[in-house]
């Protein structure tokens, strides 16, 4: 490449032979054409590698890892078995049946209980009082509803049409002072109103821990009348607010000694309710508890008795029938003797009890659970025989023997028949949510007629519907979804005998959508789990607490967070905690597409593998982690997880720490959860303000340890070694895809971080530069105010040099303006015609003829640089003024340009180019750019002598200095920049004469503008490259340290990267509109532009109003500039010879004028 040095003398005789275009030395030119192919090859290969890398990365994310459930996690099929060789232990009724003690025909009077003498003083009125009668004498159908079971509400919704009354468990009397606690549900109230049911809430004396509180009733019964009155008033008000038709009282475990007082209290309650048109119903337990109720006395005032004809064997009793036929009929016969038969509502059970051998309490199960257990144990059928006529069976689950007794539609039908035969007032369903759906069918069968084959057939098919069955216990769940109908055969025991019970035989058990639970763990085992982490604010604190207490926990983490904080993940594993996945971005798995769900699972797994060298088979679904999934929506993530080889871990103790209820409330929730048998605690270590979780954690751990529980990890609870739940990925077997995914994640991470770092640096530099330039410019202006008056100073002769190519339209004006200068000194005008194809040369020749100062030189089209070179050789004077053919000088221009030359070290002076045709927007943009870009920069740089370009449009040169610097070179497109930098290399001074104004013609269309800017950009690039040794070179002071780097960074790099930055900003804004950092960057850049524009306009005394153009410029102008710079860079790499403008030409023909 050509260097700035003295040109050989042979070149100076330009008039003799036209100088060839120095194509050998053209910057970036690749003469042998090797660069571009090489570059292309490199680009192709790296592009291919990158493409393959992306594919592999994506593959790693999309294709699932081959997770295998450890064999210890038993598959559903092999878990349940029929119980072999179990000895049938029949219960021997050695003693007389209890109900006989109570039946009216009993010879032994009630006085066998000697203590049952009335102790209270309350006297019951003897006269029968009139009760409000309900007009309808239809059969009562009361549904018992439990608010904590979503299944109960489902059943209510589906079957409200079959009910007449509803009894929800809303009211409690907890202490002996008569305090009433009520928890209503609006949705139930609405439904009741909607369907026209009579609301009779249940009032119980049951405490929060699930135990009956006899003192709650006894305190009322034995207490002062005032207390009773207050209680009755609060009860009535509550009932009225609910719009209830009355209340159902279920008071249990009351001391029978208080029988009389109890009856008195109930009478008072009844009277009070009746006064307001409400009813009092009373639950009557079948058993020794009956002693506490004076049924005869109560029958006068209580509207209905609800006979609890089930729980012959309750969950705390040894295995046995829930309501055997014998027991049922015995009690029915007994109680019917009290009161009117129509007063009696028979509560019929439809649920089951599953006794596990060795455990004290049975599990209450619903009909679908029963069917599911029977079906999956490969049972042939259930036992159903006299005298119990209650279905039951035995099975084995993981080595434990189970006995299961239940009540279904057939027992319901038999009991219903018996009840109707006694003309009872109706039935109650105990309870909604556990029932065999067949009972609704049974209810519809007409009581009056005998049962026919056709009637029974309706009960024979059992459809699973949408019901979800549960098998086993524990929080580790998998799912089976093979639904199918079941069949049972019904026959009458003795034909045509109305009173004979119906016999059933299950031939095929229905199969349901089944959730299989495992991992119940030891009774005192409890596990603590944290979701949504890691978070650098909370997780370390939590880890510290766990470490201090010596407790290990499990962390279900979100992939995006893990990726951000891998060191925390490593710490979690290092400190002995268990790790599970919680998806990548925490979406609701049920609502996203299956592909997205796969991606969520796999990406999270990859991240864990990459960070910890372990996989994990534990999964917890976001949002839905309840151990009893009830919506089909909740089942989707479980199904998916299973497919991919994960086991879903749910929770059953939820202190709701995300709601920040307070430490005491959280510990209370955990206490309740433990009492109900829960053993996995759900907490959060990220996803919001978690300081309360951190605060509560020590209290939670202390509480659990104080009550003697052992806090274990999930592997201990499930009974599977940790190495199987979190298998290590062996070093030697790290597959290529893992490497790719690791590097992929690392690369994404690095790119993101680099981007942010770059943005910060760029913004800072922009701010610094803006302030520096503005400051310098202002100082420069102030300094420049005190300038030499125009009149003083020498007025040396000047040569005005113009290179012209096809400028016929403007050349005459230009020349006239020059000649009209007010400059006192001698002016010579040299016009070099660069082979114009129009009449430019003719016009100049014509003018030269009449005006002696004008000289015309002609050459073939060799480019502007060559033309100028020719011109420089031809001019006579020392001071050479250069301008473009379309630039209009003012009269003062030449004088102003010449003035600085009084100082000998000045080698060149830049004038102030201004846009003379600001008509179109493009032109106005350029005008503003000239003002606040080029001119402002020059003002600022002038102070530090680091002006980078003296524009050919309006400038002046010292000829000797130019030749000393090597003259005009033709190896770049921006010969003016080249020359300026060469002059700087000689240590000469370059000045700015702001009063030397010249009006230039700016391209008015975007197309022309783009072409111009491409040329400028290419040229600048060439010059910067050619003079790259000046960059950061201290020798060149401000030029090397400030203005050249500034040109590189702001004019080339930032402009070229502009579109990419804009695209990233736009995408980020769309993805996370709330991310205010990006707005800041954007506004800082814009602010800098506006500031600079404002300063410039003020300095240059131009109208401030054009500053607003900065805004549209940002969106229209900038992209064009970027395009120009990018094209320039591309062409530079291609190594193509780029011409001066209108045509890309290579010299081949010489022309002799």
């Amino acid at each position, binding site marked *: 490449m050509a260097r700035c040095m003295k040109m050989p003398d042979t070149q100076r005789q330009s008039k003799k032979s036209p100088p060839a275009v120095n194509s050998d030395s053209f910057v970036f030119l690749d003469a042998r054409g090797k660069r571009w192919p090489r570059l292309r090859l490199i680009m192709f290969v790296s592009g291919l590698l990158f493409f393959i890398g992306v594919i592999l990365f994506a593959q790693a994310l999309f294709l699932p890892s081959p997770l295998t459930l450890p064999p210890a996690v038993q598959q559903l099929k092999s878990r349940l078995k029929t119980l072999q060789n179990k000895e049938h232990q029949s219960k021997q009724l050695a003693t007389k049946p209890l109900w006989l003690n109570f039946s009216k025909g009993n010879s032994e009077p009630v006085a066998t*209980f000697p*203590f049952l003498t009335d102790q209270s003083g309350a006297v019951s009125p003897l006269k029968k009082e009139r009760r409000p009668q309900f007009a309808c004498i239809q059969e009562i159908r009361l549904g018992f509803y439990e608010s904590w079971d979503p299944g109960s509400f489902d059943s209510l919704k589906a079957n409200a049409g079959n009910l007449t009354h509803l009894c929800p468990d809303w009211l409690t009397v907890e202490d*002996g002072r008569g305090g009433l606690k009520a928890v209503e549900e609006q949705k139930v109230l609405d439904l009741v109103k909607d369907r026209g049911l009579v609301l009779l809430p249940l009032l119980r004396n049951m405490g929060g821990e699930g135990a009956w509180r*006899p*003192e709650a009733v006894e305190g009322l019964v034995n207490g002062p009348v005032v207390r009773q009155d207050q209680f009755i008033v609060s009860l009535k008000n509550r009932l009225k607010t609910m719009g209830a038709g009355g209340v159902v009282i279920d008071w249990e475990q009351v001391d*029978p*000694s208080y029988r009389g007082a109890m009856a008195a209290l109930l009478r008072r309650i009844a009277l009070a309710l009746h006064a307001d048109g409400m009813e009092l119903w009373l639950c009557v337990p079948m058993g*020794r508890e009956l002693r506490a109720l004076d049924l005869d006395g109560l029958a006068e005032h209580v509207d209905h008795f609800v006979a609890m004809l089930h729980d012959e064997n309750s969950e705390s009793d040894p295995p046995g029938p829930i309501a055997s036929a014998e027991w049922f009929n015995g009690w029915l016969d007994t109680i019917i003797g009290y009161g009117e038969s129509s007063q009696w509502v028979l509560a019929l059970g439809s649920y089951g009890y599953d006794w596990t051998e060795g455990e004290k309490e049975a599990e209450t199960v619903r009909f679908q659970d029963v069917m599911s257990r029977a079906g999956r144990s490969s049972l042939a059928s259930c036992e159903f025989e006299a005298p119990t006529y209650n279905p039951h069976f035995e099975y084995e689950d993981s080595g434990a023997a189970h006995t299961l007794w239940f009540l279904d539609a057939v027992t319901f039908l038999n009991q219903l028949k018996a009840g109707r035969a006694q003309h009872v007032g109706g039935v109650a369903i105990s309870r909604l949510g556990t029932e065999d759906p067949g009972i609704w069918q049974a209810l519809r069968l007409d009581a009056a007629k005998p049962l026919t084959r056709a009637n029974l057939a309706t009960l024979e098919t059992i459809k699973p519907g949408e019901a979800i069955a549960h098998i086993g216990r524990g929080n580790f769940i998998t799912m089976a979804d093979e639904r199918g109908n079941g069949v049972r055969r019904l026959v009458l025991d003795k034909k045509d005998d109305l009173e004979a019970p119906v016999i059933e035989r299950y031939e095929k058990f229905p199969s349901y959508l089944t959730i299989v639970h495992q991992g119940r763990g030891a009774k005192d085992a409890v596990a603590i789990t944290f979701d949504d982490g890691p978070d650098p604010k909370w997780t370390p604190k939590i880890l510290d607490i766990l470490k201090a207490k010596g407790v290990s926990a499990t962390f279900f983490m979100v992939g995006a967070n893990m990726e951000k904080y891998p060191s925390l993940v490593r710490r979690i594993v290092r400190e002995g905690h268990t790790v599970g996945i919680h998806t990548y971005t925490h979406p609701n798995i049920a609502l996203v597409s299956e592909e997205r769900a796969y991606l969520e699972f796999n990406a999270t797994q990859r991240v864990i593998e990459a960070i910890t060298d372990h996989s994990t088979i534990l999964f917890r679904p976001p949002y839905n982690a309840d151990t009893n999934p009830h919506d089909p929506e909740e089942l989707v993530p479980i199904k998916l997880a299973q497919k991919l080889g994960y086991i879903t871990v749910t929770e059953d103790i939820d202190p709701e720490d995300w709601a920040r209820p307070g430490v005491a409330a959280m510990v209370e929730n955990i206490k309740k959860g433990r*009492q109900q048998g829960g053993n996995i605690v759900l907490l959060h270590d990220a996803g919001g303000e978690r300081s309360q979780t951190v605060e509560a954690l020590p209290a939670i751990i202390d509480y659990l340890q*104080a009550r003697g529980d052992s806090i274990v990890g999930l592997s201990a609870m499930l009974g599977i070694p940790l190495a199987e739940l979190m298998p290590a990925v062996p070093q030697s077997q790290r597959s290529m895809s893992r490497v790719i995914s690791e590097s992929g994640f690392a690369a994404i991470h690095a790119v993101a971080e680099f981007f942010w770092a770059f943005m910060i640096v760029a913004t800072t530099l922009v701010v610094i530069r803006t302030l520096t330039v503005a400051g310098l410019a202002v100082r420069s202006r102030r300094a420049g105010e005190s300038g030499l008056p125009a009149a003083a100073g020498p007025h040396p002769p000047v040569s005005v040099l113009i290179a012209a190519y096809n400028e016929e339209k403007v050349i005459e004006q230009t020349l006239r303006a020059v000649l009209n200068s007010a400059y006192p000194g001698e002016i010579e005008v040299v016009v070099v015609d660069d082979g114009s194809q129009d009449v430019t040369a003719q016009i100049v020749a014509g003018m030269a003829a009449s005006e002696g100062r004008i000289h015309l030189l002609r050459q073939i089209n060799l480019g502007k640089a060559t033309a100028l070179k020719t011109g420089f050789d031809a001019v006579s004077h020392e001071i050479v003024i250069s301008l473009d053919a379309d630039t209009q000088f003012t009269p003062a221009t030449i004088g102003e340009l010449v003035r600085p030359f009084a100082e000998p070290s000045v080698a060149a002076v830049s004038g102030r180019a201004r846009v003379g045709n600001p008509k179109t927007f493009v032109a106005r943009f350029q005008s503003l750019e000239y003002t606040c870009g080029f001119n402002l920069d020059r003002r600022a740089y002038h102070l530090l002598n680091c002006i980078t370009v003296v524009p050919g449009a309006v400038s002046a040169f010292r000829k000797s200095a130019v030749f000393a610097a090597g003259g005009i070179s033709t190896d770049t497109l921006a010969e003016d920049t080249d020359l300026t930098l060469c002059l700087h290399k000689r240590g000469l001074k370059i000045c700015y004469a702001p009063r030397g104004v010249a009006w230039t013609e700016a391209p008015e269309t975007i197309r022309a503008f783009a072409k111009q800017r491409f040329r400028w950009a290419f040229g600048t690039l060439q010059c910067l490259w050619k003079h790259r040794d000046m960059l950061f070179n201290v020798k060149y002071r401000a030029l090397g340290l400030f203005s050249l780097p500034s040109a590189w960074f702001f004019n080339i790099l930032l402009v070229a990267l502009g579109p990419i930055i804009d695209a990233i900003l736009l995408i980020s804004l769309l993805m996370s509109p709330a991310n205010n950092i990006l707005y800041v960057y954007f506004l800082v850049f814009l602010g800098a532009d506006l500031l600079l524009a404002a300063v410039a306009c003020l300095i240059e005394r131009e109208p401030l109003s054009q500053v607003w153009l900065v805004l549209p410029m940002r969106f229209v102008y900038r992209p064009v500039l970027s395009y120009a710079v990018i094209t320039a860079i591309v062409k530079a790499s291609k190594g193509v010879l780029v011409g001066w403008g209108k045509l890309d030409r290579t010299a081949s023909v010489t022309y002799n004028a």
Partner: protein
Amino acid sequence: MKAISTRGSSAGMKTILGCVVVVLCGLALVAGCQRDDAARDKGQGPQALVMPDKGAYTGAYVDFGEGEDDVTYDAITAFEKLTGKHLAVVAFGNFWGEQAFPAKSVRIVSGYGAIPLIYWSPWDRPYAEDRGPDRFNLPDILAGKWDAYIDQWADGARDYGKPMLVAWGVEMNGTWFPWSGAYYGGGTVVGQKDGQPLYAGPELVKQAYRYVVDRVRARKADNILWGFHANHYTMPHAPWNMMTNYYPGPDYVDWLGLSVYGKMLQSEDWNLFDTVMDAPYQEICRLDQKKPLILAEWGVGEFPPADKAEFIAKAFADLPTKYPRVKAAVYWHERWENTDGSYSNLRVNSSPEALDAYRSGVAAAYWLDRPQFRPR
């Protein structure tokens, strides 16, 4: 002063030297002892329970189920919440029928911040009263049949290490428990001592008591405070059955204990606390002048219209004034069903009035809610 001869001066020197040595040794000893004390003061060594000079410890048995041993943290804290005061003593049963030291229960009690009081009764399942001796009968115990169990239990107690109160042979002067003297010959005279007859029942009971305590002490379970726990009334009410006859001796007893109940059954009469406490208190205090007395069980049932609140309030009033030797009172909070179907509800909250009386009674500063310890 006379001139001292050289011989006298060397003797004087020896004396002075001797004194210095003695003083130094004494200082060393004292320093050495103090170092041990310092260690003990930090709570590192074995601890002993401090019986308060003024005041008495609160305590309760909180309805721990059929075997009186289903001790849960939640039950204890629920009682605390109900009565408004922390418990210093938590009492529960650990019957021989369970054949294990209740390690978990004592840990829960000590974690809660109370000292356990264990009724370590030689009783077999199903823990029915009025049944007479079962396999844990006294001759078998004395024959060594249950030595292994006693040793294992003692080891458990020793490993637990912290102070615990143990009552063996509770209410032996009655008839409802199988270890009572009434089942082992009762009033049959078997010998003489100091002019007093020795009776079969009480002698056997004392012998068995000493045997058990000796065995446990041999296993180095020194953290146990042994209690002599008698019933407030003797049944049958005969001279041979007096609690004095059952007293095993001061070396075998660390604390005296009494069960004092008001009306518990329908068949009983209603009495106030002092009526049932006066006589037994005097009798047991005569057995030893210094040993602390623990009201190891007390309570009264709810039998309206009788005023349970009054009983409780008066009990709390009388204990500090009339019965100052009582250093701890353990309330029996239970409701049970009797064989005839009636209920006995001794719970403090059997009625709101009773609960209020208990709450205000126990709130007094006289009742200390945390056990105090000192190095042993």
